[in-house]
């Protein structure tokens, strides 16, 4: 299976190289010019696919990034007397490339730093604002030629080759697009790529797996900005002239349209989208004047309407719609299985001593305004022990769980994890310290494979970063991470579903998947939020056996459950909550016979 896949990818690449080399000779000259534009647009759109389609961040400011780089290139290439500080950058195209990319990254870092922490709508609105702001800046600065722009950019010479004709530029542009596509695919198929994809599964989940979501967003944002900067450099040398209009907000919006029309969740959607938009506009410009007469700006109108209809009828874009019909077009990722099989196991943290105290709560109280959700709760769990927290709905179990998992902070009282106080620490810190959790409402990425979903849990056990991923230097570590994920899936009994889409599993299996994901972090404490809810009897028995096995291996487990039955046969100790207070704690049999507990669960009607 895997050698076949590898050779398939290789063949696709060879075919792409052949096509890129041959196309400019075979196509009519005008088509070569148009396709050069498509290539530059596709490069920008590729960044939007990564940013918006995969990472869920919306930017209308990519055109402004293209502009920064294009202007930097044009300025350095045309200014005869550069200021002394910049003189070393002038005279050759590499200086322009360097300046363009660096300047774009600086601006992107500032803008990203300001907006990426904010949720939802601030990023798109912020990008709209800076898109306009930079456009006016380009048009106003005398240095940049005002609204007439900069003309007379010399043709591009690299390695002694002159890229002064459309066919020559075609090879360069599409060569870079190909590299960009391969780099993006490599990035997505890696530890960092999984982190970017995990952003779409909810930030809370990603943080609880140890992913630094702000940093990850920034990575995606900067990669997209770099792709835009490359496009800007190519643009300046293709047009040999820059003016503000192609970098306006309107252009930024058009790039977003390209990504959405093409299909923002698939890498090759970028090329389809850029091509579709360029050719559609050409066609509209040709056809509409005959149909509707000259004078109006009909193509913008028809274009806008087409986008609306497309969003209403085909929200996944052309590529998405195609991929739904043709399985072969869906993303096919994953390291070769032979490599996984041979991978060395990951290093494990030293296991806690038997009966070491893992988690201890002292007088934990949580108030929300006037409401006391948890009142003075104290308890502890040792290594190799299962503590069940039960109580009727609304008893405050979820509030407690949030505090234990460091999503929420107690109003007063202390929580200790392996002897260290953890009040106020972040969920991400705790993931690194060996606390792993599951969610009451399953949080996974439904279109990603089971194996990759579970590998997110091992995020902190890898080290390789963005550049290693792009250059494929991370393969041995990647194989180790995937092997760990595979082993945990086999451990929990999902070994038969490694390559299935996570969303296709039954709810019970999805819950088990979350446990495998948590185990991937090599935890010493497992926090489970209602793991048995919605499970069928057989699944509950399976889960019960699994948890007993984990206990045997020295892991401490705290499970918050509503289902008393499930808990009684399994837990070492049971703590019962009602109205935010601990009303009983002890061995399962003691608790079952406790009249206070019965009243809490069944009472109220007497």
């Amino acid at each position, binding site marked *: 299976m895997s050698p076949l896949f590898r050779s398939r990818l290789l063949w696709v690449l060879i075919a792409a190289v052949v096509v890129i080399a041959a196309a400019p000779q075979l196509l009519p000259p005008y088509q070569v010019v148009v396709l050069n534009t498509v290539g530059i647009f596709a490069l920008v759109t590729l960044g939007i696919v990564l940013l918006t389609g995969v990472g869920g961040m919306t930017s209308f400011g990519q055109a402004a990034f293209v502009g920064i780089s294009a202007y930097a290139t044009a300025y350095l290439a045309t200014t005869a007397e550069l200021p002394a500080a910049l003189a070393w950058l002038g005279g050759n195209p590499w200086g322009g490339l360097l300046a363009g990319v660096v300047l774009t990254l600086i601006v992107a870092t500032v803008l990203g730093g*300001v907006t990426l922490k904010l949720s939802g709508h*601030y990023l798109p609105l912020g990008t709209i*604002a800076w898109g306009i*702001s930079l456009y006016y*800046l380009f048009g106003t600065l005398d240095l940049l030629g005002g609204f007439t722009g900069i003309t007379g950019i010399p043709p591009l010479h690299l390695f002694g080759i002159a890229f002064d004709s459309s066919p020559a530029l075609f090879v360069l542009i599409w060569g870079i697009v190909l590299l960009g596509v391969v780099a993006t695919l490599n990035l997505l198929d890696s530890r960092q790529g999984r982190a970017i994809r995990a952003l779409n599964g909810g930030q809370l989940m990603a943080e609880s797996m140890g992913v630094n979501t702000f940093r990850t967003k920034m990575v995606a944002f900067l990669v997209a900005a770099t792709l835009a900067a490359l496009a800007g450099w190519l643009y300046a040398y293709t047009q040999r002239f820059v003016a503000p209009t192609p970098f306006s907000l*309107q252009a930024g919006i058009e790039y977003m349209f390209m990504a959405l029309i093409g299909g923002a969740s698939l890498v090759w959607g970028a090329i389809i989208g850029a091509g579709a938009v360029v050719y559609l506009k050409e066609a509209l410009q040709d056809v509409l004047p005959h149909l509707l007469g000259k004078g109006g700006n009909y193509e913008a109108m028809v274009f806008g309407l087409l*986008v*609306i209809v497309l969003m209403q009828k085909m*929200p996944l874009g052309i590529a998405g719609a195609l991929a739904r019909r043709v399985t072969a077009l869906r993303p096919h990722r994953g390291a070769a299985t032979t490599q996984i099989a041979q991978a060395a196991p990951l290093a494990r943290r030293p296991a806690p001593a038997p009966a070491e105290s893992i988690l201890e709560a002292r007088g934990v109280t949580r108030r929300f305004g006037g409401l006391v959700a948890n009142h003075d709760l104290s308890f502890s769990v040792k290594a190799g022990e299962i503590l069940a927290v039960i109580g009727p709905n609304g008893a405050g179990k979820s509030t407690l769980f949030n505090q234990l998992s460091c999503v929420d902070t107690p109003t007063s009282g202390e929580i200790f994890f392996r002897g260290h106080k953890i009040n106020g620490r972040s969920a991400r810190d705790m993931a690194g310290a060996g606390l792993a959790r599951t969610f009451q409402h399953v949080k996974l990425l439904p279109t990603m494979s089971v194996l990759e979903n579970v590998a997110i849990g091992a995020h902190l056990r890898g080290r390789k970063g963005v550049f290693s991923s792009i250059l494929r230097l991370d393969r041995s570590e990647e194989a180790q991470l995937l092997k760990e994920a595979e082993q945990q899936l086999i451990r929990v009994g999902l070994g038969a579903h490694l390559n299935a889409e996570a969303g296709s599993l039954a709810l019970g299996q999805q819950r088990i998947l979350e446990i495998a994901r948590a185990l991937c972090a090599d935890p010493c404490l497992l926090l489970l939020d209602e793991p048995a809810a919605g499970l069928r009897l057989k699944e509950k028995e399976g889960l019960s056996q699994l948890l007993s096995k984990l206990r045997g291996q020295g892991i401490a487990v705290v499970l918050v459950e509503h289902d008393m039955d499930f808990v009684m046969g399994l837990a070492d100790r049971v703590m019962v909550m009602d109205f935010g207070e601990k009303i009983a704690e002890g061995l399962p049999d003691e608790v079952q016979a406790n009249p206070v507990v019965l009243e809490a669960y069944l009472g109220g009607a007497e």
Partner: protein
Amino acid sequence: MNAQIALLLGQDGVINGAIYALLALSILLVFSVTRVLLIPLGEFVSFAALTMAAMQAGKPALLGFLLVALSLAGLVMDLIDATRGGARRLRIGMLAMPAYVGVVTALSLALPLKDLGMALQALMTIALVLPLGPLLYRVLFQPIAGASALVLLIVAIAAHVALVSVGLLIFGPEGARTEPFSDSVFMLGEAVIQSQTLWVIGLSLLLIVLLYLFFERNLYGKALRATAVDRLGAQLMGISPELAGKVSFGLAAFISGLSGVLIAPITTIYFDSGFVISLKGFVGAIIGGLASYPVAALGAVALGLVEAFSTFYASSYKEVIVFTLLLPVLLWRSLAQKGVEDEK
């Protein structure tokens, strides 16, 4: 700068700020009820200003044709919805909007608007712009009410793109300005106060009071608030999301139509001027955290003032300054936000 210039700039700033505030309020209203960031709001403003200018120039008000096209599209969609699925019901109410549009369009073409005086022209203009709101909601957003925030935003932007070119078609590329409501000028000590300023401020305040009363006293106003507070709760009270969407879009169109009438004598408006005007409303809304009406309104007024004074000091960098100002606001919001937040 002397006091006189400062006062002049201040007046400009407050006038523009008042209009941005009205737009910011409309944006918040529409966003909280429907989750749509109504980018095409600016087109309502420019269409209103240009329609009023066309009336005064004695040209036919062609906006009616857009209304007719949209209302027919809406009617067709209503009919398709009505016959689809188990619920087969045709309602006479479906014809209300096409009928209204027909009447207003006929009036706008038949009446000698040039000679009817400014009050009637303004009334007619707003009557023409108002139905744009509910119609856009019906045709563009109602079919995708449950879609993701990104899809809603993209459709809003695409609608803006299409409407701008419709604007070019209807109004042509030339800019236009209307006659001022009155030429009179007041002296306040040394200072000159133009009566146009008073008109804008007075009408804006009146509108804000009316909106307040609508949301506090009127059952439909309360129903809109309820939809914004708890969509499920509102639905369970029988407040249909479609109705809430149409009403909020309608209110936004009404407010921006009025803003267009107010701004038309002060600024030359082109077919594509609306976008930047509405974006300033958005800046106001962002200052209000997309949630607080008073903060958004105050922020918008402050924005108008900054804009007016930067016109004086660095006129060519005016837009750069105004939109770059958003960065510190976003930074402040970013710092104020604790931990990670999951979007709903």
